[in-house]
């Protein structure tokens, strides 16, 4: 396995710092749940947890993805590009730009709150950091991902919407049984409504100051240029100023209210 994009062999002549997609070859595809697979490739990217890459599925599209491992993305099939990705085979090639974004600022005891495929950007925190409590949510037991690997590394508590595993209800509900004062850092990723409800709980319990949320918005460039990922009311770029934002910064934001699609049209 080759070590990172940023250690390109320096050819004499042209300095190789062009940000073209780095071609990587898929080495393994691991199914995590019926709709979610982890795609491993032959390059290790040096990235902070929470940073993301732009994944070029040749002939289809380029889409943002968290690095679940330094050499993998974990993909939920929702449309054309993700469907192409999860059906890839070892030996297939994709292109990777990045890593981009700020990533999480992590210190002390960490509480990680994940919903669905939002577990992907938090996975490395559970695996690599000491003293992490991981709240893992999904719609059904089937759709829980990374439960067993996380359980071997940290304390995991589970919630499912349908009660088929763990706590019956939204992952935010698990917070009732947690003493938030015990944690120095709270990291959150999941669907917008889940993140908004976690934000509200944390606000009510005066824990918002130490919370960080990984946002997702429509991204076309990944580098703070095109504006497709900007959020109201501050006009910051999720791709460059984020994707990780502090709770207080999001309180007055569009999170959970609306987002903009590829055309810039607002959607609920």
């Amino acid at each position, binding site marked *: 396995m080759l070590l990172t994009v940023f250690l390109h062999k320096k050819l004499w002549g042209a300095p190789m710092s062009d940000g073209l997609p780095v*071609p990587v070859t898929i080495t393994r595809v691991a199914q995590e749940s019926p709709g979610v697979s982890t795609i491993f490739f032959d390059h290790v990217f040096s990235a902070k947890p929470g940073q993301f890459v732009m994944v070029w599925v040749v002939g289809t599209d380029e889409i943002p993805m968290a690095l679940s491992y330094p050499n993998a993305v974990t993909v939920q099939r929702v449309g054309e590009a993700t469907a192409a990705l999860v059906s890839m085979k070892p030996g297939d090639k994709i292109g990777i730009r990045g890593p981009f974004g700020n990533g999480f600022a992590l210190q002390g005891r960490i509480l990680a709150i994940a919903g669905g495929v939002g577990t992907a950007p938090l996975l490395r925190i559970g695996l690599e950091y000491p003293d992490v409590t991981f709240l893992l949510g999904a719609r059904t037991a089937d759709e829980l991902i990374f439960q067993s690997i996380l359980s071997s590394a940290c304390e995991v508590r589970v919630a499912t919407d349908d009660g088929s595993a763990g706590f019956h209800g939204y992952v935010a509900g698990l917070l009732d049984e947690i003493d938030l004062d015990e944690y120095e850092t709270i990291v959150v990723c999941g669907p917008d409504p889940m993140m908004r409800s976690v934000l509200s709980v944390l606000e009510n319990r005066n824990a918002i100051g130490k919370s960080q949320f990984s946002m997702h918005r429509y991204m076309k460039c990944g580098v703070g240029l095109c504006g497709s990922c900007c959020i109201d009311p501050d006009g910051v770029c999720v791709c460059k100023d984020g994707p990780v934002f502090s709770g207080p910064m999001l309180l007055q934001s569009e999170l959970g209210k609306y987002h903009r699609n590829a055309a*810039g049209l607002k959607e609920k």
Partner: protein
Amino acid sequence: MIRLSQGPVKLAGVPVRNHLVLAAGVLGTCASSLRRMLRQGAGAVVTKSIGPEPRYGHAGPCVVVLEDGIMNAMGLPNPSREFVQELSSFDGEPVIVSIFGGNPEEFHEVAGWFAEKAEAFELNVSCPHAAGFGAQIGTNPDVVKACTEAVKEWKKPVWVKLTPNVTDITTIGRAAEEGGADAIVAINTVRAMRISTGLKRPVLGNKYGGLSGKAIFPIAVRCVYELYEACSIPIIGCGGVSCAEDVIEMMMAGAVGVEIGSAVVQDPEIFRHISEELYAPDGISSQEIVGCAHE
């Protein structure tokens, strides 16, 4: 370095806060990001180009950052008429609405939606990678003239933004002038391509794209200089501007002001940083240097 005197100015009929304008299509799809750029010191902002129908843009990759520039093929994504709503929160701020269409009628229609709100219009007859729009019509002087006339009916300042991908940019500049344009913006991106050798495919989803940033600065200066010799309306320089010295150079070539796009990637606070270098209490008036390299 030469420094300019501070304070609001007029650029081709449009009152702006300084000579540095955010270029079209860069952080320009929502009011909040446009407002952010004004807050960070842009003298005015140009919106993303708005067209007659919503567009979702080309398949990705849409952008690659090169060592000395940026290549993009966004495909003119835009919310079309809903953008009127987006701009509703602006009240007198220097917002220039960039518009595009497939013919003079469409230009006229789209401009009409914004006739209230826009301080000025910028006509995108120059995007090099959207079939039927932009440069596909901007290489024809007659069409450029007709589109300019059509938008001019709304009695607002009209800036016409030109493509460098023509044999002679001055013929297009003169057509805009004849159509009643208040200013020419030069230039849009230069048609370009990069190929991923690892994946054996052009790296942009659209294959072809437009090159911007530092790499095209000498091309943009050349176009401004040529247009200054050929036309008598003001010229706004655009293309690769990334420091105060570049602004002075564009002005000496003949530009009354500049637009800045790609440089935002390296420095999101570019407008404030350039202003700090460019302006001084004892600075001179820009009139003293605009076009002085022609003497």
